[in-house]
């Protein structure tokens, strides 16, 4: 591997194995995954249900740790950091978007979006933060709903809130685990188009998973996964 490749890679997974223990049986969710994702990439992880997409994204998002293998984020080993170090990493460098939106129900749109920034040890001044939040919300099409609580929004609108929340911290990486699975196809298209636009405008690295072949066409790069292994690498755009 050349030096340029190394420095361009935002994340590097080597021989990642993840096993779940169900009673006495061991469920191999990931069986030796090697993956590099370069900065600015828009990568789709494709695979059938149960193939290990969520497991992989959870490990990349530092929500879970691998059974074995190494994971470097931005050139740094992360597998052996403690909870608060990982929390800091998630807070500053990784934005995560979920299939089921996962907004905080008692907070309105603005409050949900600004929440990650306010949880920092050194939160930025509220005035400038609010300004950024409102601008971002308007940018993702939430302008009219700033004061709405999650239960007053449609699925597509909720996912836009989640996207704004993932982006407000200026992360290096945004992970989205089947972000469109709970949305109808038209809304799905819009959400994917939005993520793509943000990827292009802001240069944020996106990794998202799906088992819907229709969204493949948007991807610059598709990684196929089956039975916990990457079966085919298809870099449409070189890093």
């Amino acid at each position, binding site marked *: 591997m050349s030096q340029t490749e190394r420095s361009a890679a935002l994340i590097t997974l080597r021989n990642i194995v993840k096993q779940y223990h169900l009673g006495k049986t061991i469920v191999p969710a990931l069986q030796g995954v090697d993956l590099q994702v370069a900065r600015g990439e828009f990568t789709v992880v494709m695979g059938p249900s149960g193939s290990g997409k969520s497991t992989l994204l959870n490990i990349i998002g530092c929500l*879970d740790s691998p059974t074995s293998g190494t994971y470097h984020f931005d050139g740094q080993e992360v597998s052996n950091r403690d909870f608060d170090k990982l929390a800091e990493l*998630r807070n*500053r460098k990784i934005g995560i978007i979920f299939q089921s939106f*996962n*907004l905080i129900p008692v*907070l309105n749109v603005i409050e949900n979006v600004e929440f990650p920034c306010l949880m920092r040890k050194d939160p930025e001044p509220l005035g400038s933060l609010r300004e950024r939040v409102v601008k971002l919300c308007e940018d993702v099409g939430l302008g009219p709903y700033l004061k709405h609580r999650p239960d007053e929004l449609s699925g597509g609108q909720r996912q836009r809130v989640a996207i704004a929340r993932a982006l407000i911290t200026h992360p290096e990486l945004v992970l989205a685990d089947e972000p469109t699975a709970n949305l109808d196809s038209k809304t799905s298209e819009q959400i994917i188009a939005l993520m793509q636009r943000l990827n292009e405008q802001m240069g944020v690295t996106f990794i998202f998973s799906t088992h819907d072949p229709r969204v493949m066409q948007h991807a610059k790069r598709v990684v196929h996964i089956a039975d916990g292994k990457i079966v085919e690498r298809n870099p449409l755009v070189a890093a």
Partner: protein
Amino acid sequence: MLPPLFRIAFRNVLRNRRRSLITFSAVFLALGIMVSIRGFLNGLQATIRESVVLGQTGALQVHRKGFLKSVNASLDQVIPSDEAFLRKITAVSGVKAATARIMFGGMANANDTSAAAMFTAIDPVQELIVCPRRNEMIYRGKNLKESSPIAAILSPELASSLGIKLGQRATILTSDRDGVMNALDFDFTGQYGQPGLPLPDKKLGFVPLAFAQQLLRMEGKATEIAIALHRFEDAERIKPILQEALGPEYEVATWHDVAAYIDDAIATQNFILNLIAGVFLFVALLGIANTMLMSVLERTREIGTMMSVGVRRRQILTLFLLEASLLGLAGGILGALVGGSFVLYYGHSGMLLPIPEMPVPLHIFPTISASYILFILSLAAGGAALAALWPSIRASRMRPVEALSSV
């Protein structure tokens, strides 16, 4: 602008209205009851103290040194009761009045029956200045000031064992300091019973001081001087000053010293109050623990979400502790308000407490101190946080993936 965790905590308390309301009510009830009972007891204890000080002991007492330690009311240990000696006492600043007494035992006789009894001889005029509540000691009949120099007040127990009625005559037989027997007739003019104090089941009698001095052949002498102060709270302060003024052959005691049983009774009451309050508070705090545990279980996914955006463990812990404290504090404030209003209302108008066998009910004025209210408010908030500690720690220790995959 509220800090974000506080905002979330506050809204979550409001979100689950019914559950919050139940928990809130438990804390409210506990604190309301605590404040009310404390206020009532404060009033009752003040009344009891007053009854003792203003009706029996006076604020300070002077005896011959050793008198209080002797088992029997001994006539050997006498002190002067003359004007000069009393003036030495009243000269001390803060002293309002002083009165001499003699405590002695004797046989009361009437209708060919006799009964051993304890007598207290009092100065009919001075006694009412030092212990004005003695005025109310007459359950039936007249007090000594209004009666003849040979009048006596007897406890119902003594009167009935002698089989005499008010207005009838009887005799006291006793021996003087030299062991010489002597007897004098008296008229039974009043029946004894003191408000605020339990009706004595003992055989007691009260006679005029001069009568006793003649009977016991101890003119100008007494066994006890009872002293009223301008403020009875000054007793401890004035005690050493008076001791200094009188010299070492005498012994000055405060009402605490001579009526230690009152302090014991008050301590018992306080213990019972704290026990009851503790049980109520414990139940309320169990409610909080349960509420918070349910909340944590219900909001597992939300906890996972927070962790996914980089919230630290300590912040999750803070959030749930904050929610519990808010519940405890809200219930506590309302409880303190309602209990406090109860105390203020009755503290103003007074509360009549009927006592069995007493002709007049006790008049009680409940009071409560701001520091007690603050104390139990912090107890409610702090206790709530403590009760929520385990659920909150549980929440903060969750693993992000597991929390996120809960339904």
